[in-house]
């Protein structure tokens, strides 16, 4: 039972980490807690479903198209909502509240267009490969989720450290004003970040939609709560932190369901979050927060 539960925890944790990536990127660069990330995630799922159902795209192409759609949505949210607020020097809480409005609008729109019923990918779309090692069962899609999450994180992490754009982004994270003085195109990079974050959110939506095969207008809500926990625990804006914190949350949840009681999953996970924050208020890798302060 333990090896299977560890595997369950690894997939669940990777899902959390993948979701939290775009979330943490938005915070690290734009300084915005983007509460519409769950809705963007949901739109990604529906977009892939739409491409599969209506254009009969293969899964990988539907995934990329969905990422493009949700990326554009992220960009749109930045241009229409966040940028005007930045231009007016709105205090930190305002963009957060505005994104709540975006989330409500998007999920209501999805409900209006697609209905409140659970939708699924048609049969045959989801890779059905399965592997059995002794008593442990793992599906191809689960391996895909873990692999894609780790790969995306590695790419982002390296890009931020090693490339010119990455350095520019880190400079913006430090201080947008000084970055602009240094000749960095701050607004352009804000837009790029919003696009990438949206695309990552959309990718997470597609993968989770495939894994659990349940797409609903409100699917972004529960995972948004987990996402907030992950980025707080990992240290706001830290890529490595969101990976480790995502896995941590997945393990805490699965293990408490496995060895305590299935009613305790969230209680234990969030209880531990509280305890860790008591000891390390800025999260596991809380440098960005300290820098910002």
């Amino acid at each position: 039972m333990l090896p299977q539960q560890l595997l369950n925890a690894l997939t669940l944790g990777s899902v959390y980490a993948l979701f939290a990536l775009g979330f943490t990127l938005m915070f690290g660069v734009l300084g915005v807690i983007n509460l519409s990330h769950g809705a963007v995630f949901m739109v990604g799922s529906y977009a892939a479903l739409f491409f599969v159902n209506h254009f009969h795209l293969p899964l990988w192409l539907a995934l990329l198209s969905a990422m493009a759609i949700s990326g554009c949505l992220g960009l749109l949210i930045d241009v229409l909502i966040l940028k005007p607020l930045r231009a007016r020097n709105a205090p930190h809480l305002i963009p957060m509240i505005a994104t709540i409005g975006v989330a409500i609008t998007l999920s209501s729109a999805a409900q209006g267009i697609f209905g409140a019923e659970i939708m699924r990918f048609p049969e045959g779309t989801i890779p059905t490969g399965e592997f059995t090692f002794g008593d442990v069962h793992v599906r191809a899609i689960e391996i895909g989720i873990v692999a894609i999450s780790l790969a995306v994180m590695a790419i982002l992490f390296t890009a931020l450290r090693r490339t010119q754009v990455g350095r520019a982004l880190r400079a913006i994270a430090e201080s947008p004003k000084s970055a602009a003085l240094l000749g960095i195109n701050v607004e352009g990079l804000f837009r790029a970040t919003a696009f990438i974050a949206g695309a990552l959110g959309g990718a997470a939506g597609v993968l989770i939609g495939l894994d659990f095969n349940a797409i609903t207008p409100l699917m972004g809500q529960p995972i948004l709560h987990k996402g907030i926990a992950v980025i707080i625990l990992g240290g706001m804006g830290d890529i490595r932190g969101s990976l480790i914190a995502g896995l941590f949350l997945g393990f805490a949840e699965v293990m408490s369901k496995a060895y305590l009681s299935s009613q305790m999953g969230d209680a234990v996970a969030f209880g531990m979050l509280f305890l860790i924050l008591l000891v390390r208020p800025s999260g596991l890798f809380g440098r960005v927060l300290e820098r910002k302060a």
Partner: protein
Amino acid sequence: MSSLTKTLILAATLVTVSVQAADIKVGVAEALSGGAAQYGVPIRNGFQLAADEINAKGGINGNKIQLVIEDEQGKKEEAINVFKKLIFQDKVLMIFGPTLSNSMFAAGPVANASKTVAFGTSNTANGITDIGPYIFRNSVMESDVLPITVATAVKHYHIKKVAVMYGNDDAFTKSGYDVFKKVLADQNIPVTTTETYVKGDVDFKAQLTKIKAGNPDAIICSALAEEAANIMLQARSLGIKAPFIGGNGFNSPKLFEISKQAGDGTFVGSPWSNDNPSSANVNFVNAYKKKYNAEPNQFAAQGYDALYIAAAALKTVKLSGNLEADRQALRDALPKVTINGATGAFKFRPAVTKDGKPGGFDADQKPFIYILQNSKFNLFTGKN
């Protein structure tokens, strides 16, 4: 409810009044607007279909049935108002409804006190018929269905021990679990583990891995169809081969549309089935589809049967024109009725009230037991 709909219903009622020189007035108090309308509307459709059929064949002893349909909105207060209107103003012979158990608890006593039959077709709560001797229902309770479902599956699969999984934050799945728990205790079937989930959960693997470790012969599951289907899919992907046993929540085509082969072997019981091959049911299903251009459901079938039950009772009664005497005669004739309806063979059984006072009458009806095979519910005959 919009004023337009109200006008339409009023118009419909007026048309019925003028076209049929109706002499037997029967009240129908169902939730036709609001959240409970999803049950109330099919119930009303079932009544209308049955009334049309009975009247087309010449009515009851030459008298046509006139339905006086009122919207009780799924609210207790409204149900009381509607009951009072039907009993004292419209002077109906009896009332069908209301839709929800809560409303029956509120409005039932009004009918009982004025010695008028209130006949529920969708009230499944315990204690409904404790209200008094004028309260009837043909709705079968889960506590009547699940013991038979479990016993049939236990016999078929030689089940020694089971695991249980249910949604613990939903009144419907939780009450289903409570019944299952009692049934398992009554039938002395050990439970390896009891797992829960909450609304909106999509990942059941941690619980299922735990269930797998206990190696149960079957998994008892009180869940709504969509959740149940996902639970089945994830169970199979973890290598669990044990069959599922479900409650009323499983009674939806969604279950096998989603679960595909993962649900095969599942046992479920239901008061009604679309596929029941009896001629009464085939007639009902076809006529309903023709009249409403929609698939009937359990609630429509129970409404349809209820009017036939009342019609059977009325056939044996000689109406005197004295409302009080006629209401009493109908009340005394009802318990003796047996019919073969869309929901199968039906008879009443006197309710066993908690305080020993005379109560009303519950449905004494065997549920249909189904086994899911090749993504389809097949009536379980013992030979499947």
